[in-house]
């Protein structure tokens, strides 16, 4: 990380146009509708992965475009993605620890 002395205006000018933002909003709505359709349909074991994938897409789109991560300093991306992955790893670890050890019988 060198001594990049930048003026603040630089980061004020990135981003998309209003039209593009609206398009993204519409896309997000469409994905939500698809999600709903999936949850009401009878897709069996494929359903959970599909739903997770769709919400991941929404997640990424909001973070990348609405939150400007795509245009902003890579530092932000590193910080946020790093924390997010840590949270995800701990979540997965915890959930699997409990599922592996799920003999939680109420005592008589």
């Amino acid at each position, binding site marked *: 990380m060198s001594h990049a002395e930048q003026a603040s205006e630089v980061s004020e000018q990135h981003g998309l146009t209003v039209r593009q933002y609206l398009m993204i909003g519409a896309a997000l709505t469409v994905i939500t509708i698809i999600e709903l359709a999936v949850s009401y349909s009878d897709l069996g074991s494929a359903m959970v992965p599909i739903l997770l994938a769709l919400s991941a897409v929404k997640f990424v789109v909001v973070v990348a475009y609405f939150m400007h991560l795509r245009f902003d300093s890579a530092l932000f991306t590193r910080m946020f993605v790093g*924390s997010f992955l840590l949270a995800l790893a701990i979540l997965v670890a915890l959930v699997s620890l409990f599922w592996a050890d799920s003999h*939680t019988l109420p005592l008589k």
Partner: protein
Amino acid sequence: MATVAGTLARPANVGVWSWITTVDHKRIGVLYGITAFTFLLWGGIQALLIRTQLAVPNGTVIDAERFNQLFTMHALTMIFLAVMPLGAAFFNFLTPLMIGARDVAFPRLNALSYWVYLGGGLILTSSFFWDAPSAGWFNYVPLSGQTYTSDLGIDFYVVGLLTLGTSSLMAALNFTVTIINMRAPGLTMMRLPVFVWMTLIISFLLVLALPPLTVGLIQLLFDRNFDTHFFVPEAGGDPILWQHLFWVFGHPEVYILILPAMGIVSEVLPVFARKPLFGYPAVVFAGVAIAFLGWAVWSHHMFTTGMGTVPRTVFATNTMIIAVPTGIKIFNWIGTLYGGSIRFTTAMLFSIAFIVTFTIGGISGVMHASPPIDGQHQDSYFVVAHIHYVLFGGAVMGIFSGIYFWFPKMTGRFLSEGLGKLHFWLMFIGMNMTFFPMHFLGLAGMPRRIYTYDQGLDWGFWNMFATIGSYVIGISIIVFVINFFRSMRQPKTAPNNPWDAATLEWATTSPPPEHDFDVVPTVRARDPLWYDRDHGIEAPEPTGEHIHMPPPSYYPILMASGVALLGIGVLSHLALTALGAVVIIYSIWGWALEPTD
């Protein structure tokens, strides 16, 4: 003095009020230091009471209830109110100086974090007037649930830790931003003093480790007061969840406690060996590696909970691997001694002792990392020995090294070296007398957290020995306190750089002016002052330009009192919580509109 409608007038910059309203990182550092040291004494007195009770079999000094409160509060006081804030005292005072900045990124936030810490500390400590928490510092459910501990003690624990967590979170966010963004020209990341690196790392750890604890505390609060059953197996909950959430925080926490000390040692050793730190990049990356691995080991505190074989294998492996980066640090410090021209100042003695005592604690850590062996160690005095070798032999020794080292910079005065050495030797001997025998007691089957034990168990001798040792530590601390007050009565004679050190804080006066540096220094090498010295580079002349510093503010302490009210309300009457919320909202408003220049 411009006053925005509905906000408070600007405070004046003199007297007691100037301390209450200060946003100067150095003053905040001093406040942290004094408060935390007071808590250290208090936690130590609690420890002495514990030791007095345990000195002989079937002791009768303290009853069971008080004893449980004492070791719980001893640990909470030492960890959350003494050692962590002492680390904060150093990084508050030093970080901006070491990176050549005039202040931190968010000075008022910094002040707020101190006042919230004070509030949380007072809430937690005041529990002694009502019911002190008594379920141990990791406060396992169901014992800490409403059914088995119905008094207010556990609520004090929950509210206290939530408040303290808020404070740490604010400090950590602030210092992350400060270190990443406010370095002097030429001070690249790989030229940062190791202490600053460690501050950055613990800031990351705090920001990321506190939330799981917060969630656990919230669940406990709800279980106790709002009828939920997160930890009640009959209703589908599980007490083990608390243990996981606590230790997901708890293990990174122990590195939060040790890394500042490691940073201090990495600053002190090179100065008094008169040579650069051996293998700087390795020391830095080892710190990063420790922090990173620290996330994947938490279940080593739960080896005896009936976890499956495979999870225990995984967590044991991860835990053992931490010995490798830690070893890198130890050997690089030893490498720093090699070929040096060593001056045995008190600060240096503490740092050298740190290497040895911390290694003892680290090695017993690796022993617990083996699950079958841990079956014998867990919840025995062997673990108590481990924690005190790393926490006292590590963190506290490192902190004392730092106090002797930076005292001239902070106050302009020297601590007496004679008394200092007396302090060191008493403390070093006392701590080994106190904590080494605990290994034997652990092996002899003595469980921890027992207020009494039988004559026939043969634990009497070493317990008495340890108790005597703890009094020796006590005397050593009294020596230090005397040394402190004596020095404070001396005139300010310390030059800018009395130890011939290499980092930027020694380039300015002792104590530093409010704006830290007349001219923001330019950094040309990893050990900037040595580089300048060897290359005949003179310090730049002050330009005499007016340096504008952020003005003091009432809002941090006001907002902190709102936060404290919030907590007190949960403990007493919800109306106070509402009042607290009002105070907070009012302070945010005033804070936002208060001009910062």
